[in-house]
Every structure is written in structure tokens, then in C-alpha cells.
């Protein structure tokens, strides 16, 4: 039994001497009120303070003053919903840690910030190694659409170009570099064939600002599979291609 107060726009729970409080704009407000009324204190507390929920899951990450740190580097708040989703879906933390580590390995601060912007508006589909999965459209002969004959995207191929040749300006919406995208952007992508590609987050150069951050410019990618009916990719770990 813990003291609590529920008002029309706030709920406050004094849980183990700590004051937990959220407003009605919080997505779990109704759920928290129900849990408190039922007396499920622990669940209610973790819902109110995601830090509590994450701390038991995110081993290897440090949670301090409302922020997450990995190896002393701050992880963007945009990752919080993804971490919670991964936990709810019962995934192991290791792929996510690998993903974050690779993001931190990205040599450009500008690129890292753009990745954080990408993760805060998109689902992230990652592999057990922590690489991101994206779609790409190519021509019928598997050559790229833009130049028509520079790179051939055959399944299993790794296509790379020098990082410094890839435009890192997010405001250049179409520019030099290898372009991949999320499901939402596919309809804006010309070409006949759809491929699923794996990208190391450290190879992401920029996330153009158009199309709600659904397009990504990278300097290296590996073609995993040709997809006949592309599906939206959720925030999950995809251990084998579909």
C-alpha cells in the first residue's frame, strides 16, 4: 500500500519513498490509474517512470538523471520508446546494445545527430549484429536507378563508396551517395525491384530532411534479399530474412 493521489490531469504515487508523478498527456495515464486502483504498485511504478523499467533491462547502459548513457556517451531520448518496445516484445538487449555501439562508432557527430533524428520518428528494424534493415528499389537489371549502371545490387553483394563522396548535408535531399529507405518511402522510389539491405549504423552519412526522415544516405550496404511484397518494418530484431 503506497500513498497516491489521482486528479483529473495528474497521478502521483509515493513509491518506496520516491515521488512518481505523470500527467494525463502521458500515453500510459489511464493504465497507470487502473493499476494503482488495483494495487499493482510495481507495474504502475515502472509505467510511470520508464527509467525504472529500463534499468532492469538495459544492462550495460547507465541511467542517470533522466538520461541514458552508454560508455559515458549520452543516448538520445528518441531511443527510449524503442528500448521499451524491445523489452515488451521479449528481445534480448544484446542486439540493441550492438546497434547503439555502432551508432556511437559513427565518425561524424553530424551523422550521429541525424541518426537520432531518424530513430525518433521511425521504427528501427535491426539484425542480431545491431545493423539496420532498409529497403532499396533498383531497376529490372539490378542496376541503380539514378545512374543506371554504376552499381549492381545482387543479393549478397556489398556496395561501398568512399565516405567523403557521400553528401552529409541533410538539406540536400537528393545528392551523392547510396540511398536506402524505410517502407514509407518506397512509393516515392522509382524502379522495378525491391531489395532488403543491411546497413551498419556507423556507415550512415545523412538523413535528408524531406519525406519525414524516411530516406537515408549511406556509404556502404549489403543486399540481403529481394522482397516481392515489402512489409512495414517494426521496431524488432530480425534474426533471419523473411
Amino acid at each position, binding site marked *: 500500500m503506497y500513498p497516491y493521489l489521482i*486528479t483529473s490531469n*495528474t*497521478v*502521483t504515487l509515493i513509491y518506496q*519513498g520516491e515521488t512518481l508523478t505523470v500527467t494525463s498527456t*502521458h500515453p500510459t495515464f489511464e493504465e497507470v490509474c487502473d493499476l494503482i486502483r488495483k494495487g499493482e504498485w510495481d507495474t504502475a511504478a515502472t509505467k510511470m517512470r520508464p527509467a525504472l523499467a529500463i534499468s532492469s533491462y538495459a544492462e550495460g547502459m547507465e541511467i542517470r538523471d*533522466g538520461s541514458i548513457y552508454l560508455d559515458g556517451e549520452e543516448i538520445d531520448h528518441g531511443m*527510449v520508446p524503442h528500448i521499451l518496445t524491445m523489452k515488451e516484445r521479449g528481445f534480448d538487449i544484446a542486439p540493441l546494445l550492438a546497434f547503439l555501439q555502432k551508432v556511437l562508432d559513427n565518425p561524424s557527430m553530424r551523422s550521429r545527430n541525424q541518426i537520432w533524428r531518424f530513430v525518433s520518428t521511425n521504427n528501427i528494424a535491426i539484425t542480431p549484429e545491431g545493423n539496420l534493415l532498409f529497403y532499396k528499389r533498383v531497376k529490372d537489371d539490378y542496376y541503380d536507378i539514378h545512374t543506371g549502371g554504376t552499381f549492381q545490387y545482387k543479393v549478397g553483394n556489398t556496395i561501398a563508396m568512399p565516405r567523403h563522396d557521400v553528401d552529409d548535408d541533410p*538539406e540536400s535531399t537528393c545528392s551523392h551517395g547510396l540511398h536506402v529507405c524505410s517502407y514509407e518511402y518506397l512509393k516515392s522510389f522509382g524502379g522495378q525491384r525491391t531489395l532488403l539491405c543491411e546497413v551498419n549504423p556507423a556507415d550512415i552519412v545523412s538523413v535528408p530532411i524531406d519525406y519525414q526522415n524516411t530516406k537515408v544516405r549511406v556509404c556502404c550496404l549489403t543486399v540481403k534479399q529481394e522482397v516481392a511484397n515489402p512489409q512495414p518494418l517494426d521496431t524488432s530484431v530480425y534474426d533471419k530474412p523473411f
Partner: protein
Amino acid sequence: MLIEINNTHQSQGLQKICDFHIETNGIMVKALTSRLYSNPISSIVRELASNALDACRTHPMEIRLPTPLAPSFSIRDHGPGLSPQQMSEVFTRFGASTKRGDNNQIGGFGLGAKSPFAIVNSYAITSYHQGVATTYIASIAANGMPALHQVSSDPNNETGLHIEVPAPNTSTLEWKKALSQLDYFQPQPVIRGIQYDFPTPFHDTPDYLIVKSDDIGVLVGPVFYPVDPAKLGISYYDIPKGMVVKCPIGTIEVTASREEVVYSPATISVLKGKFAHGRQHYREITLDLISKCRTAPEAWRVLASAIFDTLYNFTTPSGTTFKISNTALYYGDDPTYGGNVGIAELDSRSRRRKRWVLNWAKSNCIEASDHCYFLDDTRRWQERVQKHFAHTILGSQRGGDILLFQDPTILDDAGIPYTKVSSIPTDKPLRNPSQRKAPRTLSARNKLTRMDAAPTHFIRVDADGNAAHRDITTSVKLTCDILCRMEKRISQYTSQPTEICVVTPTCKTDISNLPNAFPEWRTIALQFIRDNPLEVTRRWDHHGYFTKFHQALVDLGKMPAFHRNSMPEYHHLDIVSLAADALPPKPDYEGKFRALCTQHPWLEPMESALNATDSASIKRVLETLFNHY
């Protein structure tokens, strides 16, 4: 904060029926919380942080901004905390404050601690006081009335107050923005949950700060408030950008919500005085720095870093064509790409023009600064630079680049490089439609547009060093037009060929000997003042003293006779200080009176009585005089 209520109230023949009362109900509470603040989040941060600072000025307060991991705003001070009695008597009472008699404390309206009710119906307070940590929840009940509930009470050796306010789903950035009000808190709060860098002022004095901002403001105690210069009756251009004056608590009136300054006559007068003083001081420092510069670019660099660094830096290629969209000035093909300039910087005329070429050459735009100068759109900006520039170089109070010379040897002597524009047509209109296609020699218009800096003023200097200046306000065409008329007028006065020299502030030569460029002029002025001992005041009187002075110069053949309406202003000659040198000193009446007082002590009390107007005092003065004579 000292808040005074001293209304005069004298009456006669009135019968008091009752006092007014303030009803305590939910509506009134709403009026004093959620309806009081126009920006509640900013107010909560300011109010709670001000209370925390009032509570403890030795230990920094700790502030945690809401994040997705911990969606509440928390603030913790290390003051003495509040006893249960103080909680019920002050914390929960609207209008109750312990800070009214003291201008060292920020608060005083008795509303700040309740500010979280502006966004939420409940918040938690933990008071660490005298070995006990007591947790309370303040909440608004169904009827709208707030109440305080005690939750727990445990032994604890810490002191202070911890307030935890649940944060609605607003972005952390909105809270971060509110932190700017605490930029000048000492000690600086410790911010958690977000990276926050407190700004470092460029320049910090006991009276004002210069910070990297376009706006001006006032620090009332430690709290920053923006100031609207228009409401003070000051031009925006008269205050260095980013100037923040410091005022003690109590000298500036603020609204009950404490969101802004109240522009009452008293506050306006204090602020005006502070800004005037700050500006003067800052100007002195800048001029002092400039006086130590050996070359014009150095001086320019000082100006650029001292005042104008808060303005706009562009590094665009020379001759870039800019285009204008609805929101930005840009180059290249994409409005979202490239060096954008805010549309507000362009006046309406330029916006209508839709497209123009930035007329400057980077190579000529001295190495001191990569600022680019729009031909006439940032005229005020140039004016300010040139004012300082000309003040230092030519001893003029106002500035200019174009100098009309009968004999440019003054420039040679002074080492100022110049460009000659000698082919200005003197009697033909500049643009004759019938001659539009006819080949012409390089016109002044062409030459002027090729200058590396746009002219905004000109100074005309003749062989004797007589100088006059005028704004060139509108266009190059008008500039040429004015120059033509000037040249014509000079040619009427003298048969000597007149040359127009264009001097731009890009000269790189030594300028240290320039203030002595007009020795003869000064000698004539001094002699004139000695011969005509008129009363010299600080008010310029063109039709009085200066008309005569000018006429004397004309009679001496030292300057051309101008039309009355184009009377030049001799700002660069400080006539008042010249007069102080030239005229004999005024008789020292006060000293004489003091000397008399030592001989006749009875005179001393007479001084004040002499100014009196009432009959009793006058009578007393007369009696004293009778007694002594």
C-alpha cells in the same frame, strides 16, 4: 522584493459601509494560477528557481528537466527547508510572502510557489527541515480549491526543499528554452536531464553585460527580462545589440506574473538612464581600443568584434546573385540551401525588388571582416560603423566615404588612399532617355557602383579643410545627383578644377596623424571666437553664431558661400570646447560670495533665505539687513 502600497486617502463627510473582500473560491484560484501566466512553463521554471535562489545562495540548486525516462520537472534547493507551520502559513496561502521587506529577495507577491497549478492539478513537495523529511502533495480538489496533504515524515539529515512537478507531454526543448531566464543566476544551477550551456557574456561590467543576442534586456536581480526599446522611446539602433543592463531588485517594476517589465514612468526612467550610461561606457571602451589601432582595418576589426559581432556573418563568394523567397534571402537554386539571411533584415523595398546582386568584392572587403554590405539595405549598420570610423579618422561626429576635394593633397598628406571620380557630368541629367544607347565615358554612377563599399554619406572637404557632410539615403543615382550639384556649386565659387575622391574604409595605411589634418581651420575658429565673444552654448544655432562664423570664413575667402538651405554643419569642430579655450573665464560670483561670507558670517544664512518666496522669510531677510545697515 520591496513592494510599497502608499496610497493617499483623506476624506471628509463620507460614511464607510464596508471593505472590499477577495472571495476564496476555485475561480479565484484559477485566476491566480492558470489564468495568470501567458507562458506557464517558463513561469514555473522562473518562479520555483527564484524561490530556490532566495532560499539558498551558497549551494547551487539542482534542476532536472522532464525527459521520456522521467517525465517530471524537479527542483531541489539546499536552504533551510520549511517547517510544517511555514508550509501551512506561507506556502499554501495566496498573497502570503516573507520577502516583502527585503530587496535582496526576488519574490514578494506570494504567488510563485503556487505556479505549478498553472499546468497541473497536483505536485509534490518534500521539505527537509531540522532532521525530518516531510513529503506533501499539493492538489486542487474537485471544487477547484487547493489543499496540502502530508504523505510521509521520515528522519533525514539533509536540508532544503524538493519540488516535483509532473510535466505534460511538451517537448523538453520548451523547458530548456525556459532555462534562459536563469542564465545569470549565481551560483549557476546544476542542470540534469539535458545538456545546457550557460552563456558567457562578451563583456561584463557591474552595470551591464554584452551577450551574443540581437535583443536587449534587463537583469532584475538575477532574473532576465527582455526590454522593448520602443516602449522606452529609444531607437533600436541606439543600443548596442545584446546589451543587458543590471538593475537591483525593486528598482524595476514587474507584473504580478513576473513575466515582463511594467513600463511605468519610474521604470522607464531607470532603464533609459541605465542604457544611456551603458552605451556611453561601452562606446568609450570601444573608442579607446580604436585609438590604439594603427590602421583602419585594425579599427574596423575592433568595431566588428566589439559591437557588430552579434550581427550577421556571411561568407559568400563575391558577386553572388541572391534571390528572395518568402522567408529567406538565398543563393543557389534551393531556398532551403545555402547562406540564408532572415527576411526581416531586408527592408520592404528590397523585398519588392525580388532579385539583386550583392555588390561587394570579398577581396576588397578588408581582411578584418567577412561581413558583406548590402548596397543600401543595411544602411543603418554601415552608418554606425562609419560614425565611429569617421570620428576617429576625420574628427567628424558623423561619417562618410566620399570626399569632394578641390585639392586632394590633404588626403595625400594624411596618407589616405582614394579613388578619383573626375568625370561627373556637371550640367547634364544623368539619364537622358534619348541618349540611353549612346556610348558614354565611365559615369560616376558606374564608378560608384564599382566601389568596394557602398557610400552612405559624403564629406566634402575643400583645400582649407572645410568639411560638410550629408546622408546619401536613397540610391546611387541620387548620390551622383547630389555630387553633381555639389561640384557645380564649388565650380561657381572657384575656377580651380574640383576633384571628387572616393575614400573607402578599406585603407591600410597609418591613420595616427589624421586628427591634425585641419590646423588652419582651428586657428581661424579660435580667432573668430576671440573677436566675437558671443555666448556659446551647446545648442547649435545655425542662424546665429554659426551663420556669422560661416560668413567670416567666406569673407576671409576660406570657404564658398552656400545657399542658406544647404548650410553645412560643422559637427567635427567642437565649438564649445574651442570657446572654452578662446574666451576669458566667467566672473566667479559664487567664489566672491564665499569670500564675503568669511568676512561677514551673518551673510551665510541669507543665501537660502534669499530664494524664499513666503512673506515670513522675506521679512526675516529684511530685518537682518536692517540690523546690519
